[in-house]
């Protein structure tokens, strides 16, 4: 399958990112990496190393202390207000606890992904553009929830909710998709299905995917590149085949758990 490369290439570049909550005690120091279209990257590391902070620094839900972030070549680090909101449309996000609006229907939750494009008045009157509604129907079909369109989000199971969360993020037509522990609230079988869906949807839409995940086996199985974070910095960056037990020891510490 040879497809024409989409131009400009969708990409994310993080350059020398630092984050400290208390001055002099960086939780993330000197983080640099780049991902571009059709690649899926897993970020692994022990709890509390700042994986969630890293992901939230990318779209500035948490302001980074220093460093630069480029989305498809555009420097978004110093943006504020309306410009920041326009930049955030290009960054899709999937959450551990799904973060759906429970009392809205599946369709409305999916359409929430367009709120960055649609005026508040149109959103309030539920007058979304026809193209948005078509896109939502197509996505609902591809995630297998077309029969649930009119159901309220709180009537769905965990796996179904995460599917809706993924569809909402794809609706943004993002240039990069961030997933923060997307499988941690799900059972093992559903986790695999969600990983499959994330990888296949981002591949068909040519969106680079970055996943925070603590399940090393799932990371190795579904991604093409693994970034290991420990003690606030990147200690491993390479394909899953190169991730050895020594690396895992370095990332997580100890050794008994590896036997």
């Amino acid at each position, binding site marked *: 399958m040879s497809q024409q490369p989409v131009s400009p290439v969708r990409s994310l570049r993080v350059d020398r990112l630092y984050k400290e909550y208390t001055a002099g005690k960086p939780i993330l120091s000197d983080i640099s990496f780049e991902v571009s279209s059709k690649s899926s990257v897993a970020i692994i590391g022990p709890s509390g190393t700042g994986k969630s902070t890293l992901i939230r620094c990318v779209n500035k839900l948490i302001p980074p202390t220093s460093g630069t972030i480029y989305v498809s070549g555009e420097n978004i680090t110093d943006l504020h207000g309306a410009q920041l909101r326009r930049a*955030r449309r290009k960054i899709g*996000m999937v959450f551990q606890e799904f973060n759906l*609006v429970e009392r*809205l229907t599946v369709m409305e939750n999916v359409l929430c992904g367009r709120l*960055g494009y649609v005026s*508040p008045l149109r959103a309030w009157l539920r007058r979304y553009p026809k193209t948005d509604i078509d896109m939502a129907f197509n996505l609902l079909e591809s995630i297998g929830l077309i029969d649930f369109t009119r159901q309220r989000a709180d009537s769905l199971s965990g796996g179904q909710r995460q599917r809706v969360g993924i569809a909402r993020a794809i609706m943004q037509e993002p240039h990069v998709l961030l997933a923060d522990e997307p499988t941690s609230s799900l059972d093992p079988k559903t986790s695999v299905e969600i990983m499959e869906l994330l990888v296949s949807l981002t591949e068909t839409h040519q969106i680079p995917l970055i996943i925070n995940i603590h399940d090393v086996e799932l990371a190795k199985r579904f991604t093409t590149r693994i970034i290991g974070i420990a003690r606030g910095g990147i200690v491993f960056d390479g394909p899953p085949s190169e991730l050895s037990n020594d690396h895992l020891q370095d990332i997580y510490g100890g050794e008994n758990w590896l036997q």
Partner: protein
Amino acid sequence: MSQERIWQRFTFAERLSRFAVFLGFAVALSVSLRTVEIIPEFLLDAPTQIADLLKRMWPMDLAYYPEGIHHAMMETLHIASLGTLLCIILAVPVGILGANNIVRQPLLNWLSKLILVSSRSVNTLVWALLFVAVFGPGALAGTICIAFRSVGFVGKLFAEALEESDPGPIEALQASGAPWLSIFLKGYWPQVAPAFWGIFLFRWDINVRESAVIGLVGAGGIGMVLDTSLNLFFWDRVSVILLSIFTVVILAELLVTAIRKRII
């Protein structure tokens, strides 16, 4: 090793302080009884007075309802409903201002608290007296009075509902680049809507009862008719008025309960 182990719920000091609290209550009760200055003759006379009152109230002058009460009763309901609507319009912005997860300005939160507290700290009858002085006696004064009195109640509960809403969906909408108004309409509002309508109905229910009283100081409604009948010693009319207030309050309560069941 085998020492006898004793367990007591309270330590000696705790028991002593509990006894001190009881003693304090007993002293306060006896002191306040002396200040009330009960006149024994009047107290003993009370049953006779009540019996006399009831005798004067019966039989009720039911014929008076269509000619003198019905109009006032409708006015009372209008005062309650319009007052509640006006109160909502005032309370929503003040409530949003007071929710510290939406407006992150302590000064504005404090300003909202000031408005809400001053609305609640003034009694309904005092608000009514104030607005009768401003607008003259009648339903307009009553409506404004009801609205101002309810703002504190509705605004406080609305602000609390907003503060208790789940930050997860809000974060998701922020991450999608949605403007503030869209986040409010699609993130906060669906979460607080049931609470909002519950508060609205509950306040309307309270306002039906309150607006029956404010007529006593001239702010329109059934209270004015009650005041006139009391002053002219028409006890058989007073009893009809009390009965109709009672009936309307019960009906309002039933209606509110039925609607609440449907929306929540």
